């Protein structure tokens, strides 16, 4: 039987998808505009059905370190927050990356800097794809543009995290978190048994049997020669992810003379701008990066041979535009259009910006 179509907020979809994908534990702390994730989980009470643990920690720092602990035992664990809370988690995220632990982090972005505003923003792009925490590490970053993708990317995020032993992040914003749309939730997948975890995660700290050495979960290595090797291994893994996991969507790009580049909620608004501009006879397309890291650089470089210019539309002062420019490498003009501090542009404003900046 096909699954029922439901209407829900993006944040609610995250919570339901987590329960359904066999998640073992959620650790969070409330913050607008993502509080419905924790609220929905506590309302549904999955500990009574699947056995999934849900815990409101005393702080974001505690929550991310609980994730570190859970992930170290091979469990499927996650946390979610919004921008200021995700800043607090950065030390823990760097440790997760350093100890090569699979985990899922969700950031439903709001305007900053500092405590900022509770309205939508995409100003945590740099934090997400360029580091955020310290050290040479990468997060697999997925940018949902619909409530359906909020649901789908939970399972996908966990799959990628375990495949590469690397933390994954869903980078959404207040629009996608708060809006309601149709969604078909993923089918129920049972939580893995202890035996299955031992088999799938031979590195996990699950109690030492006699037939192997201790599994030690740590990011610390005081011998620089060994630490360099460890870093080289991480870099090799990142190159593999870059080769295999780039995801993007092309919208009306085939005959495009101009290209908009946008992710998440901005891509939705740009889609409307594309429809309106095409009605005026302007041949514009939209390239939507779905993975922000690994970034769809190759396809953008190819489009630079086809289009006259590109406009990167993002709810920040110009962040992803740097990656678009690197990808295009000077072949065509790449400009940026953004609104700041929680203001969201309308489709009209995007068309005006397009005409003023790249046509």
């Amino acid at each position, binding site marked *: 039987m096909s699954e029922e*179509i439901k*209407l829900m907020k993006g944040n609610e979809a995250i919570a339901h998808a987590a329960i359904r994908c066999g998640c073992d534990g959620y650790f969070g702390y409330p913050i*607008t*505009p993502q509080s419905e994730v924790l609220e929905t989980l506590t309302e549904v009470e999955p500990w009574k059905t699947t056995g999934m643990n849900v815990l409101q920690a005393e702080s974001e720092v505690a929550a991310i370190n609980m994730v570190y602990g859970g992930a170290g035992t091979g469990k499927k664990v996650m946390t979610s927050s919004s921008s200021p809370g995700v800043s607090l988690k950065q030390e823990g995220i760097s440790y997760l990356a350093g100890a090569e632990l699979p985990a899922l982090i969700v950031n439903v972005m709001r305007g900053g800097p500092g405590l900022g505003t*509770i*309205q939508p923003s995409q100003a945590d792009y740099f934090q997400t794809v360029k580091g955020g925490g310290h050290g040479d590490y990468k997060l697999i970053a997925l940018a949902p543009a619909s409530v359906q993708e909020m649901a789908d990317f939970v399972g996908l995020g966990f799959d990628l995290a375990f495949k590469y032993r690397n933390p994954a992040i869903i980078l959404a914003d*207040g*629009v996608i978190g*708060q*809006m*309601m*749309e*149709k969604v078909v939730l993923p089918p129920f997948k049972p939580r893995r048994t202890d035996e299955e975890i031992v088999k799938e995660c031979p590195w996990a700290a699950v109690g030492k049997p006699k037939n192997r050495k201790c599994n030690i979960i740590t990011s610390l290595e005081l011998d620089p020669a060994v630490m360099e090797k460890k870093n080289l291994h991480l870099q090799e893994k990142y190159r593999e992810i870059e080769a295999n996991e780039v995801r993007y969507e092309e919208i009306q790009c085939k005959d495009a003379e101009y290209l908009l580049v946008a992710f998440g*909620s901005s891509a*939705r*608004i*740009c*889609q*409307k*701008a*594309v*429809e309106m501009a095409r009605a005026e006879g302007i041949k514009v397309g939209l390239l939507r990066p779905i993975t922000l890291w690994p970034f769809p650089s190759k396809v953008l470089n190819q489009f630079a041979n086809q289009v006259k210019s590109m406009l990167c539309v993002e709810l920040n002062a110009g962040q992803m535009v740097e990656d678009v420019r690197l990808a295009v490498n000077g072949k065509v003009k790449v400009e940026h259009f953004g609104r700041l501090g929680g203001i*969201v542009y*309308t*489709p*009209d*404003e995007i068309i005006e910006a397009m005409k003023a900046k790249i046509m």
Partner: protein
Amino acid sequence: MTEEIIIAGFGGQGVLSMGKILAYSGLMQGKEVSWMPAYGPEQRGGTANVTVILSDERISSPILNSYDTAIILNQQSLDKFEKTVKPGGTLIYDPYGVTKEPTRKDIKIYKINAMDTSIEMNAPKSFNMIILGGLLKIRPIVDLENVILGLKKTLPERHHKLIPMNEAALKKGMEIIG
């Protein structure tokens, strides 16, 4: 068919829940729907608004600069949204919260005394359903039976006894809009 609607008024007037019921009704009718609230502290006492889109096609942007229909429940919202109605579009307002009447000549304007009527009906909480009934009379985008199904989906089971009252309010709204 695509209908792009803004509903705007005071927090506590049932703006967001009216939008939610409309969105659920669209879902019951097999349409694509989106519901995008202005969220945050404005829900509690300040102005509240929600954009609802019902369409036969995939919806692109949940955020818009102009609307087919505006439902306006206070003066601040009228000042903000009267100019955003598309030429030829529809504006529905309750004069209870409005001191300066809408002035545009290129849109269709309807008045609905929902606040007064809800008090007369001794059911002030069904205010937003009177408005929704008025909207559906003017713009029959969803069938009444699907609105009732939508109500069943949005209301918790313990409140299902309130559905007949809401149905009466919807029908009253259809009668009194003018």
